[in-house]
């Protein structure tokens, strides 16, 4: 189970904004953060990963405290069991597909999982190729494989499918579903794409100006006609 509560001042294009968000999620759940740009979605992922500091707050993952500003606990990203798929994938340009994935494999770990992931993601024929020669969809699969090879407690996906066409988007949604169930991953997804949210999410948080406007199952939220973009 993940518990999250954070306060932070954000500097956005609309000026200063106070982020004040709290939520909980069960193991294996997929939570989607939805809302306009500048609402604080990516910032929440970065706070979860330990990449952005906050004013006050608390993060707990399976009863392990990652962050507690009162007790002055703040685990660095390295100590938090998580996988992060960045919006632009952040693949290491000097390493091949296989080397990118192997880099993430902890020392002494079995190489079998790597081979299994390469097969599951259909990356076999591409394993010696460098990232700049891959399509967006292929890069996304490498980023996903690299993020989950450590079997993290929490998987963070920052609009990973935004730059893809519908066909590729569907196929990659399949990959995400497959991987999530295979590894029982608790996942936070940032997405604008409503069909995708409906298909993948167990729970949706609709953020606006740094606060939760509404939360619930995607079906419950989508019956609300006030949601923009539907």
């Amino acid at each position, binding site marked *: 189970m993940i518990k999250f509560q954070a306060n932070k001042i954000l500097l956005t294009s609309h000026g200063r904004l106070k982020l004040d968000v709290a939520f909980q999620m069960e193991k294996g759940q997929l939570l989607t953060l939805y809302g306009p740009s500048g609402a604080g979605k990516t910032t929440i992922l970065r706070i979860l990963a330990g990449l952005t500091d906050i004013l006050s707050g608390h993060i707990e993952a399976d009863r392990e405290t990652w962050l507690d500003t009162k007790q002055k606990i703040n685990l660095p*990203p390295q100590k*938090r069991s998580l*996988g992060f798929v960045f919006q632009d994938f952040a693949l290491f340009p000097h390493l091949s597909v296989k080397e990118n994935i192997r880099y993430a494999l902890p020392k002494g770990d079995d190489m079998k999982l790597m081979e299994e992931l390469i097969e599951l993601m259909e990356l076999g024929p591409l394993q010696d190729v460098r990232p700049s020669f891959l399509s967006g969809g292929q890069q996304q699969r490498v980023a996903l494989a690299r993020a989950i090879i450590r079997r993290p407690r929490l998987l963070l996906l920052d609009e990973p499918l935004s730059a893809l066409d519908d066909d590729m988007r569907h196929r990659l949604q399949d990959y995400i579903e497959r991987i999530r169930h295979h590894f029982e991953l608790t996942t936070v997804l940032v997405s604008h794409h409503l069909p995708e949210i409906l298909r993948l999410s167990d729970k949706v948080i609709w953020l606006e100006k740094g606060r939760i406007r509404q939360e619930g199952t995607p079906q419950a939220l989508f019956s609300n006609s006030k949601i923009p973009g539907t």
Partner: protein
Amino acid sequence: MTDWQPLWLSFRLAFVTTVILLALSLPLAYWLAYSRLRIKAVVEALISLPMVLPPSVLGFYLLIAFSPSHGPGRFLDKYFDIRLVFTFPGLVVASLFYSLPFMVNPLLSGFKSLPPALREASYTLGKSKRTTLIKILLPNIRPSLLTGIVLSFAHTIGEFGVVLMIGGNIPGQTRVASLAIFDEMESMNYSAANKYALILFLLSFCILLVVYLANHYFSKPQPLS
């Protein structure tokens, strides 16, 4: 007969200076690139000073500092029996100051040009700052590393004012090639001056050519690793 001693001294000085500078500048450039402290603007300005100051200013202050009758020079002389004025080690220390911006600045712009997500991705994969630096950041700033190494080397070979003031132009000890050219010219020995000058000219050209060729090679993405 060409006296090769000044050329040999120049190369020895440039080599030693470059190796030490690389070791000093990597942590310094890394800190400057990623630290959020405000004081780093002051440090950046200090590092770049030798690029704009006349070498005689740097030479003058270093000469005073190294002199056994003043603070740092006296300390080194008294406790370590080291004298830096008119010696080869003195030339090395002076060259470190003089060529520091030529190593730090390329490395710094190399680090700054990398997307922050590369470093962050490595951290979220459980890798320490050190592993990230060695395995991710350094391989991706290879052109900057090469530029820093070559520019520091070439700039140290090209020193004149600082080495003259600190080294004192002692044959066999501190008389490097750039000083030898001046000496030979002063004694109207133009053919010897020309030999040194031509060798330095050709060598500098070749060094820069290698840098540009290598950077063209690095800038082309390679499909397979």
